[in-house]
Every structure is written in structure tokens, then in C-alpha cells.
């Protein structure tokens, strides 16, 4: 089962995780991205490409399903304004054994960072704003999954 949601409201990590525990599941892995508390950061605004986001996330989830023996996967991604400590993204997978869940979760978050159309803008305490630049390390992390 694939569940993909883009939402403005915060999500409950515990609920999202426990919903992955279904019949035959032997292990659940998840990754939760949090707005880092970087000194003067006031808020983070997440913009996305509404028509494409859902397609891109579902394509990623399907790729994970094709590659690993998964029973379920959930991808939740917030958009709008967030403050330090807020969750931004949840990626979770369930499988019969741990290796598939752990690997698929790492794959999903690595590839989400380079394939899904989201952009972050930072707002600082002094009112300054700037778009976050993509990191080379994220490209390298995504490329290690090229089969």
C-alpha cells in the first residue's frame, strides 16, 4: 500500500508510523525531517509544484516497491510556513524483514531530495529571506542508488 500526502498541517509521527504496522509486517523504518534550529532562523517556507509533486512522490514510492520487498510505504511532506523544531517530511516503510525497510527508507529520502519539486525559503529574525540552495552532497546521496 502506497500513501502519499502533501499537507500544510503538521503530521503525527507516531500515528503515521503505527499505521504502517499491518498484517505480516516484521519491521517498520522511518525518517522524519525537522526544521533545524540554525541560530537566527525564524521560519522556513516550503513551496511546491502542486501538479507534479504527487506524481513525483508516487513514482518514487512505486520505484521503492519494485526494488524492495515492501508491504507499505508512506510519504508525508508539508508545505507552507514552518518554524524550527517542526517536522517537514515523513518517510516510512514496512516490510517482513528489516533490511528492505531500512534500505528503502534511505532510498526514498535521498531521492526525494533531488526528484520531488519542493523549494525552501528561509526567513531570518532580521527580516531577511533567501532561497535555500541545493547541496552537492544531496546529489551524491541520490546517485548512490542508481542501480
Amino acid at each position, binding site marked *: 500500500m502506497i500513501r502519499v500526502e502533501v499537507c500544510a498541517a503538521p503530521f503525527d509521527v507516531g500515528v503515521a508510523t503505527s499505521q504502517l504496522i499491518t498484517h505480516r509486517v516484521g519491521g517498520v523504518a522511518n525518517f522524519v525531517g525537522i526544521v533545524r534550529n540554525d541560530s537566527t532562523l525564524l521560519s522556513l517556507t516550503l513551496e*511546491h509544484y502542486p501538479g507534479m509533486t504527487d506524481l513525483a512522490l508516487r513514482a518514487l514510492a512505486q520505484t521503492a516497491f519494485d526494488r524492495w520487498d515492501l508491504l507499505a510505504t508512506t510519504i508525508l511532506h508539508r508545505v507552507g510556513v514552518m518554524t524550527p523544531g517542526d517536522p517537514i517530511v515523513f518517510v516510512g516503510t514496512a516490510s517482513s524483514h528489516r533490511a528492505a525497510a531500512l534500505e528503502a527508507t534511505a532510498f526514498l529520502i535521498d531521492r526525494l531530495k533531488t526528484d520531488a519539486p519542493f523549494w525552501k525559503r528561509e526567513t531570518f529574525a532580521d527580516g531577511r529571506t533567501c532561497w535555500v540552495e541545493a547541496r552537492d552532497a544531496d546529489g551524491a546521496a541520490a546517485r548512490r542508488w542508481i542501480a
Partner: protein
Amino acid sequence: MVKILYFSWVRDAVGIAEEHIDLPETICSAADLVDWLALRYPVFADRGKLRVAVDQVMAQFDADVRRAREIAFFPPVTGG
């Protein structure tokens, strides 16, 4: 008529989020479109900082856009 979308700082630089354009017949690839848009919007002068999606799928700049319905330009993504 194709819908062109701009996101993040590309939109800030262009000044609008979307527009509908009748593409000249000389435009075949996304790269051709970038060169054509650069005549109006300086931000398109440097393709290296841009990414493109054709009909809501990530594409390369050599992608054929002659039958596209929707083309989006944006910086490298920074979600997650």
C-alpha cells in the same frame, strides 16, 4: 498554446508564476525555449542553474517540447 510555469527564485526573477505562450515553430527542445525566454528574462541566460519539467515530469534540456502542454522552470529542488 503551452502553459509555462516558474517556481522559487525563477518566478521571483521573471515576475509572474505562469503564462500561456504560442511557441514559435523554431522551438523544438527545452533548450530552445530557454534561449528564447532569455530574450525576455535575463534569468534564463544561465541554463546551468535551471531545471525543467515537461508535462509534470523532470526532463533534460534536450527534451522535445513541441507537443508539451505544460513546461515548468525552477532551480534544483530543496525539499525533504
